[in-house]
């Protein structure tokens, strides 16, 4: 039986056509499998590169957006600074006294256009209350970026042009760089420097507890004293004291007020 079974199976053969078709099928399938593999590999790299590019762009965009390039310091009694990015959007606020904190919390300023943010602060209830009480609001535009500060200064000046008790000025950042070390806003520190030019005994701590109206009155008094001293022939040393680091006359003070 063994031999017969063997002989029976021995006569069974795969035909050549089937072998050829099988070989063709395997060759074709292998070729197809290799091509998609390369394509998938290419796509993987492309997707990875695109993802890296996107990540870099997102990181760069994030860094660019959240880097302040200009500060608008608004001081009346509340002292608040608006950090503005290069796109003119508010990306942060800093308050330098309790009133400033209360004001910052009462208004929504983040991601607003700087113009709109300034209007929002000026029109806020607490700010309007101070203005009604004849307080003095100083809006200082502080930046190293000349082009942007010019643009912002022009826009804010236009807004404050005909408003009572509001003044706007432009300050170079390096001139008021020490403000925050004394716990003062840039705007208040600038006023402190103005007074300091007339009165060497005044300290940042004293200024810190004063409203801007009080500081401005003090400055006016000092300037008047100096002028009267000059008229008496004693105040020649104070000439040019009311000039900023750029040699420009400030916009506030007698005759320079935007009203």
């Amino acid at each position, binding site marked *: *039986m*063994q031999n*017969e*079974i*063997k*002989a*029976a*199976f*021995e*006569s*069974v*053969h*795969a*035909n050549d056509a*089937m*072998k050829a*078709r*099988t*070989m063709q*099928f*395997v*060759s074709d*399938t*292998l070729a197809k*499998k290799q091509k998609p593999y390369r394509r998938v590999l290419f796509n993987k790299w492309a997707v990875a590169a695109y993802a890296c590019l996107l990540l870099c762009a997102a990181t760069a965009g994030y860094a660019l957006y959240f880097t302040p390039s200009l500060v608008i310091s608004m001081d009346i009694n509340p002292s608040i600074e608006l950090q503005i990015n290069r796109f003119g959007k508010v990306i942060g606020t800093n308050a330098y006294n309790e009133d400033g904190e209360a004001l910052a919390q009462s208004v929504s300023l983040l991601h607003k256009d700087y113009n709109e943010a300034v209007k929002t602060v000026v029109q806020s209830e607490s700010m309007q209350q101070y203005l009604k009480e004849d307080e003095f609001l100083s809006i200082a535009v502080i930046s190293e970026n000349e082009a942007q500060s010019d643009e912002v200064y022009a826009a804010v000046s236009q807004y404050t042009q005909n408003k009572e008790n509001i003044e706007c000025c432009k300050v170079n950042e390096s001139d008021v760089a020490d403000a925050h070390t004394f716990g003062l806003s840039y705007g208040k520190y600038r006023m402190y420097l103005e007074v300091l030019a007339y009165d060497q005994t005044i300290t940042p701590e004293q200024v810190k507890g004063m409203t801007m109206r009080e500081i401005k009155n003090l400055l006016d008094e000092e300037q008047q004293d100096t002028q009267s001293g000059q008229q008496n022939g004693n105040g020649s040393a104070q000439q040019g004291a009311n000039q900023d680091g750029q040699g420009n006359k400030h916009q506030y003070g007698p005759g320079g007020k935007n009203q």
Partner: protein
Amino acid sequence: MRSEDEVNRAIGQYADMIKRICLIHLKNDADTEDVFQTVFLKYALSRIAFENEAHEKAWLIRVTINACKDVHKSFFRTHTVSMDALKEMQDNNPAVQNMEVLEAVLKLPEKYRRTIYLHYYEGYTAPQIGTILGKNVNTIYTWMQRAKQMLRQALGGEQDAK
């Protein structure tokens, strides 16, 4: 992945064996061709490093049997008429000898067919068949014994089932 030359060599060397395994499992040439393609594609894509020819042959037997089982799982194929493969093969290959023996083998239950083929044709021992099929060696001995008895009965007891 193996080269086309390796696949070509394997087809030349093992096509007949695979055809025979297909014959004892499948019912028509179309299924046989499907199994051929499946087996040799698996061979081409396999990363197994065969220790020797016997290892390669045993692997191909195992893969072919599994491929045939997969064909059986298909609903349509399980409902086709049996013995078609033999007639189809006879039509295509009139030189087949001992047709009555082959018919008797193909009428056996599948597990017996497989055992008979591996033992009588491929010359594997019961322990080797057990390894290839993943069965206990005693089970293989039992299957061989029963298959021989059934063949003897089918062939009228004239054959010596040694």
